[in-house]
């Protein structure tokens, strides 16, 4: 395991990106930071710029206006950057699959490492997903 990856696992900094969601997943992500769930005790910190982030949390169904910008943002991220898809919309577009404005699912635009299903996933599920992500990176 490289030095950078080892350091990242101690304290993964996350950047949160909504690409056309209903707000629920975003609020559950913010909920994870607040006292009851408090993921900051694992060293996870929500940062304001993709250039500081190790983990990209993507919610929402990637509509036409967001999809191109999402790709640009992913390209700006320092590698290694892992992508976590949160919520049914970013997994498979959920019930927006027939919408005229949601042409492709998220993993056709950028590579996704972890999928957290749910509409919206509970904060426990999000924490569980991120723990799985850390195990996955450790395993490789």
């Amino acid at each position, binding site marked *: 395991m490289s030095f950078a990856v080892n350091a990242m696992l101690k304290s993964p900094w996350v950047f949160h990106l909504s690409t056309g969601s209903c707000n*629920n997943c975003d609020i559950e992500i913010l909920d994870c930071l607040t006292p009851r769930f408090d993921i900051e005790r694992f060293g996870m910190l929500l940062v304001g710029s993709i250039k500081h982030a190790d983990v990209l949390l993507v919610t929402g169904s990637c509509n036409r206006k*967001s999809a191109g910008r999402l790709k640009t943002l992913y390209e700006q991220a320092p590698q290694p950057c892992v992508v976590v898809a949160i919520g049914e919309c970013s997994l498979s577009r959920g019930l927006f699959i027939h919408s005229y404005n949601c042409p492709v699912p998220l993993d056709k635009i950028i590579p996704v490492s972890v999928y957290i299903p749910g509409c919206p996933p509970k904060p426990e599920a999000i924490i569980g997903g991120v723990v799985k992500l850390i195990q996955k990176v450790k395993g490789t």
Partner: protein
Amino acid sequence: MAKSVIPIGPWHPLQEEPEFFTLTVDGETVVDMDVSIGYNHRGIEKLSEMKSFDQATFVIERICGICSTSHPFAYTRAVEDVIPVEVPDRAKYIRTIIAETERIHSHLLWLGLAGHFLGYNTIYHWVWKLREEILDVCEILTGNRNNYAIFKPGGVRRDFNMDDIPLVLRKIDGIIPTVDRLKKAILDDPVLHARLKGIGILTKEEVIDYSALGPTARASGVAKDVRKDAPYGAYDRVDWDMIVTENGDVFDKVVVRVLETYESIKIVKTCIAELPGGEIDLNIKDIPPGEGIGAHEAPRGETFHYIRSDGTNRPARHKVRAPTFMNLPTYKATVIGETISYATIILAAIDPCYCCTERMAVRDVEGKRLFGGPDLVKLSQEKTARMKREMGMP
């Protein structure tokens, strides 16, 4: 002096939703602003027209995560207006209880975010810890923290389990002392007074000009609330007060929301105490052709839904107007002339919810807008004339 432009967004660290604001500033003073939306557009109205009346409730619920009761409430009222039909009493009370618990958690969420916008993260963490208790109440009553899936045209989908009610009441009573402490801490804090008083003033005339809704209007002295003006559900059967303040600045909007939390707690407790027995659902099978409208006072203002049915099991037209659609333009009236440091909190004061508001414009490949405002008005007038001709009206 040369003017400069400050972009906010589309993914700004302060906003959890994508939205693009451009503020034109002269020195520190904001002289102009513009907003570009569309990052959240999912085509909900069209999707809803593809689903049956029962299924559409689930689509409508996902317009907005925080208003996941308000939109179905307005939608089911619109469908019931098409038939027309009156839902059973127990269903009315259950709807009111869920709507008011949602208002409590939405106002608390806003309060926390406002603290976060001011850089006062103590409030943010404190309030969101309290909000978890309300989400627990929602989970106990409906089975879900958000997206309750309890509304259906003609009633509600599930009944409460009456064994859970003592626990719910205990939890609601448990939050009152914390809200009291919060109220004192926020309303007596000299720092917050200095930051919030006298900024972003929205006058009564501007509220009427922009047709602002909800707490944004009530903080400016316009007593406007669908729950009082045209009562529905159980709102006319319980005793509660409309909170109206006069100044219209950001501080008053905080006051309105904090005090409304108390009113909502009062409504929930009364409704639970007076919960009548009986049926919860009318089991509506057919929706006749016709039109219907439904309104509900969401935490941010009046949510309005229009349904046209052609006798099939799908809505022929479904129109949604969310409160932020009316409230967002008031930002132009409040932010211009203020300094850039106040711009975020003035925006936050209207409690914007962009995913409710999303609209789209059609452009050709060169980026030219195909339909502007006058074109849409012309199209609309032509369509009205055509429909009148078809229906044989003069």
